[in-house]
């Protein structure tokens, strides 16, 4: 089954490119550490998911590029074409001359309806190229205007037109400060609208990835490209093929469906985060060896202590003893330590993957009281190594990890809203105070629901 990617705005297009590049490089990586036959099956599965093929054999990304100004799209297209390994479809992009100017309302209420038909037609063409459509990746930032506003609009349209297909929005969470001043407004509008129309929001925090670049990748002067590459790596580690089940050597056909069924069935809990291990620069990789036990021990501690990377994990954090009333309401004011999960998915790739012991992730104390680990935990595996890492593990988690950042964003936006600052920029394009209030209400509920997990 295939996944159609919709890249929106500057951020979405830049990341989209890196994602496809990472997927392609990995599936053609000679260091897959597995049999030729296996490697071929892996490649075939990856290709079916993310690429279609043209006559001359160059794979074409199953992607639609959308931006409201041409620069980034032109850049992205030519970068892909120059790589010579894969490319974007000739007629798979849509751009206009003038961006949304960081105004969510402009993207959502002006660009959206104005270009609805053209964009949906492009998407439909891409969908028709798939023998079987699994769902959509919608890559967008939530701070800007085009990615966030138009992205929310397009997602809603996808929900209307392809109600049975799955929609996963890859959302880039802005830096806490310094990207866009109205980012908190744009963010709450984006999140609340996506909560209504998307199936899952896979969130990447710029701050966290930035730190990974600095601490794990040892990059001195970090560029957006570096950040996007780490991000693409994380996505690849989740969505490259894995076996469909324990003991099976067929590759999974329905990654989106399986993931969502396990992680986001509850309508109030749709936010997912990715963690991966190991993550390091290629130079250090050559001198490192790993054991599954070590990797998983770190990964688990990253989960429960809410660390985004393996460096600086707080090893003091322990799951609460089950049965004790310590798992009370999470308080936002007090520093909270233990990150309670709703559901987790661990993805293991590489050598001796069958020997990996995952019992530590099945501890009921890790999860909310109303889900048993048997419902809340799942594993995907493949023997094929990922992107030169002999062994690697990724964790997709629906947990409290985002409560704090979300609360911060809602709080800042609320502060600004209370002073009515910038509101005129939105009402100009039809987004009224009422809409803001709806968004605040929904997100306050989401925050409360995540906080109340232990109840």
């Amino acid at each position, binding site marked *: 089954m295939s996944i159609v990617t919709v890249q929106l705005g500057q951020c979405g297009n830049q990341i989209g490119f890196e994602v496809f590049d990472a997927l392609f490089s990995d599936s053609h990586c000679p260091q897959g550490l597995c049999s030729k036959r296996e490697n071929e099956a892996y490649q075939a599965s990856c290709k079916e998911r993310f690429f279609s093929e043209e006559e001359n054999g160059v794979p074409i990304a199953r992607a639609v590029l959308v931006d409201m100004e041409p620069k980034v799209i032109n850049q992205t297209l030519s970068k892909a074409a120059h790589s010579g390994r894969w490319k974007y479809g000739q007629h798979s992009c849509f751009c206009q001359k003038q961006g949304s100017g960081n105004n969510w309302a402009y993207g959502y209420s002006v660009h959206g309806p104005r270009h609805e038909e053209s964009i949906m037609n492009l998407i439909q063409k891409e969908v028709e190229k798939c023998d079987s459509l699994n769902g959509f990746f919608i890559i967008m930032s939530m701070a800007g205007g085009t990615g966030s506003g138009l992205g929310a609009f397009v997602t809603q349209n996808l929900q209307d037109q392809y109600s049975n297909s799955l929609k996963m929005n890859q959302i880039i969470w802005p830096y806490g400060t*310094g*990207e*866009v001043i109205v980012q908190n407004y744009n963010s709450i509008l984006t999140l609340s609208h996506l909560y209504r129309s998307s199936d899952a929001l896979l969130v990447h925090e710029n701050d966290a990835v930035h730190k990974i670049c600095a601490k794990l990748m040892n990059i001195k002067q*970090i560029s*957006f490209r570096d950040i996007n590459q780490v991000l693409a790596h994380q996505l690849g580690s989740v969505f490259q093929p894995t076996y469909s089940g324990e003991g099976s050597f067929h590759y999974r056909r329905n990654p989106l469906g399986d993931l969502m069924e396990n992680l986001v069935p509850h309508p109030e809990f749709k936010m997912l985060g990715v963690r991966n291990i190991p993550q390091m620069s290629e130079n250090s990789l050559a001198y490192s060896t790993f054991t599954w036990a070590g990797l998983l021990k770190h990964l688990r501690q990253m989960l429960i202590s809410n660390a985004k990377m393996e460096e600086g994990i707080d090893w003091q954090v322990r799951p609460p003893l089950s049965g004790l009333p310590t798992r009370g309401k999470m308080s936002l004011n007090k520093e909270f330590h233990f990150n309670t999960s709703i559901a987790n998915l661990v993805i293991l790739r590489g050598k001796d993957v069958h020997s990996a012991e995952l019992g530590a992730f099945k501890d009921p104390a890790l999860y909310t009281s109303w889900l048993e680990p048997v419902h809340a935990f799942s594993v995907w595996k493949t023997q094929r190594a990922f992107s030169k890492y002999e062994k690697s593990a990724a964790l997709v988690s629906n947990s409290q990890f985002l409560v704090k950042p979300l609360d911060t964003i809602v709080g800042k936006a609320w502060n600004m809203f209370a002073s009515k600052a910038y509101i005129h920029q939105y009402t100009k394009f039809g987004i009224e105070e009422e809409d803001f209030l709806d968004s605040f209400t929904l997100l306050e509920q989401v925050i409360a629901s995540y906080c109340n997990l232990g109840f």
Partner: protein
Amino acid sequence: MTQSVVIQVGQCGNQIGCCFWDLALREHAAVNQKAIYDEAISSFFRNVDTRVVGDGGSISKGKICSLKARAVLIDMEEGVVNEILQGPLRDVFDSKQLITDISGSGNNWAVGHKVFGSLYQEQILEKLRKSAEHCDCLQCFFIIHSMGGGTGSGLGTFLLKVLEDEFPEVYRFVTSIYPSGEDDVITSPYNSMLAMKELNEHADCVLPIDNQSLFDIISKIDLMVNSGKLGTAIKPKSLVTSSAGAKKRQEKPFDAMNNIVANLLLNLSSARFEGSLNMDLNEISMNLVPFPQLHYLVSSLTPLYTLADVNIPSRRLDQMFSDAFSKDHQLIRADPKHSLYLACALMVRGNVQISDLRRNIERLKPSLRFVSWNQEGWKTSLCSVPPVGHSHSLLALANNTCVKPTFIELRERFTRLYRKRAHLHHYLQIEGMEESCFTEALSSLSALIQEYNQLDATKSMPAEELPRLSVAV
């Protein structure tokens, strides 16, 4: 890609415009070595096939034939415009873009606004429409004018209303040159005051600049260059004050000052070139204007020159950021560091990465005060193409209460004159001018000052968390 049209009004506006076009040409020539007409150039220039007679000769692709500035030149005296038409830039303009008169506005806002406004309205509109037709997607009008004189101030602000009615979707960015305290135009407080009301009501963004600050900056550079120590170390063609490094300095007194403004405009529109974090012009008002009236942005430009030494230690890079917030680098006499920030944009060009930007924001943040509801009011952009002669540069735009003193001073100077009703009759004799024009302008400015006062007052208040919506379960 979008296009912008520059409207230069009055003597000052045209002089700055002249520098702007010179610099813009040089910038594109440096970036675009193959002389292909690309989208970046198209934002300020048309490519015209001169062999075609008439007006239909625009070429959208291919080799550059003949570049025409997307500009409308307006002056009610002929001098400056004629000079331009005889100068090296003459090919960039053609007569269809000019509107001139011979009588001048006599430093009287009312003459520029009321008399020439109604007289030339149709003609101006005609030229504007024409220039708009040449655009694929017109995004912004850059209006350059002075506040103190008659034509720039009067006709320039008259234009704003015309533009607003005719092109409501197109942004109006106004570069306004404010008179210094010891201005030689006696009526400049009247003119500025009357113009302020129009700016308040009809501009999307105003970049106030004052001559004194420009002059101070020049003096500082002069000092550096001539001190001998640095003279040879400064990279040629890297001064923000000169349009051509080889040219003999200070041919005209205002050239250097005008060059600074021209640089400001070029950096403001750096979205012409690619970058990893573009900042389109429409993002400026979106991010920096929290309330419709508070659209005055204090700007600063760093570095003012670049050393010939190619190795830029990051300390030097960090210095660029520090300078941008210092009093000495502001293009208006203001001290943003000791006032209240409503919002701040950093537009970086050249070889600078997001991590440099973030490091400096983190470093500088503690020394700056932001309004309570916008504690993280930063907007940033990264453009990979640096200005000519530089490896990197920074334009800082601040919506900061530090503009208030300029306005207060203007009000004081106005009140001093107005109390004596000096020279009032020159204005009142013009048809359509009444005393109420003055009082309304005064109250408009006072209201603006009041808004800044209120914001300043929050500085001393403790930041409190507002009660949020409270969810029951």
